[in-house]
């Protein structure tokens, strides 16, 4: 059971503070913040999500730079409390549309209302946005979405998909739109995160796709929804073939290692026709999470080379090739590479006619950064960098540099080939068809090439 819940800003100010049981001293927020800020335990420089100070257990998760914290003196399930903190953040986001320090401060009374219903005397009552609606009366004061940082979660669909209102995902589930009635629409997002490690020779050492089918419904009347996935989808890899790329490649089927489902999902006909049916609750929630280690074609190939070029000099050549269809465009690509410690100066040479590319050498942590606004499928981009060393180094410069890591977002593309074949809304409404958005996006989680 939870004794206190609070949200702290990056500077350690209390934005909301709710004491449920009065078992933990009032100064706990301060104790917590000092501990997190000056964390020192062995070599770890980052506080783990759970720690104990003087018999009080502190749990925290970081969401958009804010610290969501719970305290207790009881030996509870850590996974329950951490999941709950994430969920509270999500519920607040559902209500406020946008979750950040500003919106929280503006709506803290609403947040208190929510907190009173989510937890009573330390016991979780409900985190369902839908059920909470009946008990929450404050109208959210919506903050300006335009002030969101361009890399915020809401913006991943903003580019490359012009027909979609970027603001949609930042809409509160309760606020009515200026026009009066709410727009009937439903968003189904297939979000995949790729983790891949290439060896220095370009061979794939490990690869994994972590996917989520996320839904956000603004439909009135809670209609039932049917979501059909690939017919040839199979789940569970045969024993012993984990990471054995032989078995599945070429056959064309999508093989997931494992998946799990939101509790509203009914799997009655899933085994027969790969159809999920559900009555979506309000707010954003994952319909299905899945994990795949089956071989897939990585969207980018990375080639990196560092060579000594005379004394105190070296040259780096970075090449990124986009191996997806030319109809697809990746955006906000960022390539980073740690350089040898003794590097003092770097001069860059972009390919001729390069547009929307920037380069930088971060002196403080000796890192090369190369950003590209977009990369069209099938194209290839190269960066040359000339390094100057401050002093002679006996160390092997290849060992001192790398690995190269890449981050990117590719809208309307997914590497697993998992698809939503159709999205059916079972509703007899005569007025008009609700808007249905099915969107795919692939992002890099840990996309690394060793050199």
């Amino acid at each position, binding site marked *: 059971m939870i004794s206190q819940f609070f949200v702290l800003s990056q500077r350690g*100010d*209390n*934005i*909301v503070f709710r004491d449920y049981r009065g078992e933990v001293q*009032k100064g706990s927020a301060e104790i917590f913040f000092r501990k997190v800020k000056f964390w020192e335990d*062995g*070599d*770890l420089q980052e506080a783990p*999500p*759970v720690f*104990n100070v003087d*018999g009080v*257990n502190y749990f*925290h*998760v*970081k969401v958009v730079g804010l610290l969501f914290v719970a305290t207790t*003196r009881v*030996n*509870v*399930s*850590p*996974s*329950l409390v*951490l*999941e*709950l903190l*994430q969920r509270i953040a999500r519920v607040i986001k559902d209500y406020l549309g946008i979750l950040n320090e500003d919106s929280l*401060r503006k709506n*803290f*009374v609403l947040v*208190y*209302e929510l907190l*009173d219903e989510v937890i*009573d*005397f330390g*016991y979780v*009552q*409900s985190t*369902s946005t839908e059920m909470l609606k009946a008990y929450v009366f*404050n109208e959210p004061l919506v903050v300006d979405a335009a002030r969101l940082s361009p890399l915020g979660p809401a913006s991943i669909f903003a580019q490359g998909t012009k027909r979609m209102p970027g603001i949609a995902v930042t809409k509160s589930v309760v606020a009515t739109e200026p026009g009066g009635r709410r727009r009937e629409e439903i968003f189904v997002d297939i979000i995949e995160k790729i983790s891949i*490690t290439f060896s220095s020779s370009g061979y794939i050492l490990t690869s*994994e796709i972590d996917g*989520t089918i996320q839904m956000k419904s603004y439909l009135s009347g809670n209609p039932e929804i049917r979501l059909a996935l690939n017919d040839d989808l199979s789940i569970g890899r045969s024993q012993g073939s*984990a*990471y054995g790329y032989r078995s599945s490649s070429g056959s064309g089927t999508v093989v997931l*290692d*494992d*998946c*799990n*489902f*939101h*509790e509203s999902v009914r799997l009655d006909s899933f085994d027969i026709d790969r159809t999920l049916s559900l009555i979506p609750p309000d707010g954003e929630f*994952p319909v299905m999470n899945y*994990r795949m280690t089956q071989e897939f074609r990585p969207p980018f190939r990375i080639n990196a080379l560092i060579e000594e070029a005379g004394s105190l000099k070296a040259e780096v050549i970075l090449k990124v090739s986009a191996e997806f269809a030319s109809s697809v465009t990746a955006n906000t690509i960022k390539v980073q590479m740690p350089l040898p410690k003794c590097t003092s100066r770097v001069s860059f040479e972009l390919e001729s006619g390069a547009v929307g590319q920037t380069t930088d050498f971060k002196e403080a942590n000796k890192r090369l950064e190369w950003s590209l606004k977009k990369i069209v499928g099938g194209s290839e981009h190269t960066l040359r960098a000339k390094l100057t060393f401050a002093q002679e180094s*006996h160390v092997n410069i290849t060992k001192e540099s790398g*690995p190269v*890591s890449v981050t990117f977002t590719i809208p309307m593309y997914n590497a697993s080939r998992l698809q939503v074949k159709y999205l059916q809304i079972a509703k007899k409404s005569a007025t008009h068809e609700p808007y249905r958005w099915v969107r795919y996006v692939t992002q890099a*989680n*840990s996309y*690394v090439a060793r050199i």
Partner: protein
Amino acid sequence: MKERRPRQSGLATSASHTSKVYPSDLTFSEETKGRSNRLRRRSTQLSVAMAPPPPQSHRSPSPSQPSGKSEVSDLKSQLRQLAGSRAPGADDSKRDLFKKVISNMTIGIDVSSLFGEMVMCSATSDIVLKKMCYLYVGNYAKVNPDLALLTINFLQRDCKDEDPMIRGLALRSLCSLRVANLVEYLVGPLGSGLKDNNSYVRMVAVIGVLKLYHISASTCIDADFLATLKHLMLNDPDTQVVANCLSALQEIWTLESSTSEEAARERETLLSKPVVYHLLNRIKEFSEWAQCLVLEFVSKYIPADSSEIFDMMNLLEDRLQHANGAVVLATVKLFLQLTLSMADVHQQVYERIKAPLLTQVSSGSPEQSYAVLSHLHLLVLRAPYIFSSDYKHFYCQYNEPSYVKKLKLEMLTAVANESNTYEIVTELCEYAANVDIPIARESIRAVGKIALQQYDVNAIVDRLLQFLEMEKDYVTSEALVLVKDLLRKYPQWSQDCIAVVGNISSKNVQEPKAKAALIWMLGEYSQDMHDAPYVLESLVENWDEEHSAEVRLHLLTAVMKCFFKRPPETKKALGAALAAGLADLHQDVHDRALFYYRLLQYNVSVAESVVNPPKQAVSVFADTQSSEIKDRIFDEFNSLSVVYQKPSYMFTDKEHRGTFEFADELGNLSITAESGESVVPAQRVEANDKDLLLSTSEKDEGREPGSNGSAYNAPSYNGSSAPSTTSQPLADLAFPSTGISGQASASSLAIDDLLGLDFAVGTAATPSPPPPPPLNLNPKAVLDPGTFQQKWRQLPISISEEYSLSPQGIASLTTPNALLRHMQSHSIHCIASGGQSPNFKFFFFAQKAEAASIYLVECIINTSSAKSQIKVKADDQSSSQAFSTLFQSALSKFGLP
């Protein structure tokens, strides 16, 4: 209070209304407020504080960033103005003011002085205002118990509102006041709340009962609310009401059971089959959080037989596919607990839970991954093979937080075995060059740990030596420490290692631990390292600059060792080191130098035998945690114990320990066990004293119908019939013990002597300590797995010992079954067994003849070391020593013709 008044009633009605409940001096209107003495005093104080009204208007830019003290008094006057106002828009102004008050409260400014004004403004139909007021009142009522009285009235009235939500809110706030002298006002509203036809109100009322219990336990129990909760738990259609009943009853009865036996019984019956089945059958109707609660609750239930276990597991199978990691982990815990006594099913469970847990690691937030990985780590320690082919899941990703990376490194260390070591070590070597230096260090340590747990270290040694050549300070430092440990275990590698270590300049090593390691190697292998005396000499020259006492201590010893091997070259360094040591301000350094000096004065060869005796290679480095503690943590699966890697008694106060109530005894036990063997005999004497008393009473009571050992009249362990032995002289027990002593291997005897076992009992000449009463076992004892499991979980360990096995015994232990048959012939029965050569694990039980008293044994046999570790748990702890002796003698006969 009988008639209902409309909520919209203004201040005047509410004031007159109040006076019906309280003496007339507590009313709300301005002019009568002064009649309360306390209130008057407070208001005069405040008026002093308010004296110069601050000339500020609306200064604070955002409602949650108010400015300070003067604003509190400002708010007070504004609230007062609005209190009676029914002007249009008054509610909006009130909302703004209330928001400011609450935002002050949030950032920790004391706004309790506004209590009266806040309550005055609370007469409103605006639900948002009401809620803010409730929040405020709940926060300050405890520190202002007198003022809290003011709120009772309007809260009680709202408890009867026609809107169920208002009823619920008011009831919740009423119960949250936490003021002891107001409890009488709670009983009525709670009673009707529990019977309310709206589930929201009932849900609030159930938790309200728990709140009442914490304010006044006797009021709560006297009102007989617990019976109502029990009824609701089994009958309410709303699952959240049911879940809250379960939470409340568990908490209350756990707290009560420390003082009341009845509550302890109630808690036991809560865990009965009908309740468990009732909850499980509705599991899918519960919210995900309530599901966790139910699963945790059910994991304490002991099913009667295996078909019940399978039914439960089949029912809950799909919970493993839940997106919420907390539900998955709670299910995993239940499955593991259910199958503890079914070794093969237990293994299947491990296979089954693997994929869902890995999905939780990668699909959740980093924080959730951390929680799940901690549990995986625990599982891997118990069953290393389960993830041995999935090791790649534990490779670090460059953007993970370091707490996740650290756990993953621990996982990689734990899953490493012959088949995957090469790949894992290769991967770890990549991290050694990582920009994240703490993780790079951890990676190198991980390589070292893997090296120390492997049989074949060829490839690893090469890697470690490569680290030494990387010329990064921290890499060199970590690698030196590892090489030192490695040499202590595998001295055969000294040639290869020393060649590389010799190339390292001691000037490049700064960290004390690494420096100490290097110096140790210089001393230990000075005959093989050419310039060892000279390196040591230069280190001694810089004695004063060496800040670490640890390094100086090592330096003294190393110089000594070097001196014994190469006296002429080291003589100078030794002299300098001893001189510097004697002058050292650090006590330990000084003492060691003096000790060495005197040793050398006395006799050089004696000194050598003291300082540098021939060493044996370390076979296994001491495990940081006893297996007992690890088992404890496993019992507390899905709790903080797993994350902290310590059992709950180590970090939780007693009153907050909740459901893990046995941890305490075990904690004490393990502490005494650690505090040295000398304690053990003393305790035993005490135990034996008690024992004599107990055994006489047992003779009278022990003949229960269920344990009619005499009816079987089977030959008991020592050959005489069971009934007669109890009355035979104590010396009879000597028969089995002395009988085996001739046959048992010499080594086991030696250990027994060390442990102070009474082998002398046979002579019966030593009058004290009194020998334990004769122990005979029921050859036909029966125990079902469920009971075994329950007892195993509940009883503390009374004896934990290690025996040696005879070579014949080891040779015969090709399959677990061979031992089972053997032990059965000694009336010790097996309930579960498993494992493969060289590690076997058995659970045995035995029953005292003619008594219900059961002994439980966990026995782990390692055939390669010919050792067995046993843990005995017993109903009757006083006789567990005698049982242990029996057990050991039976075990030692295994394999003998």
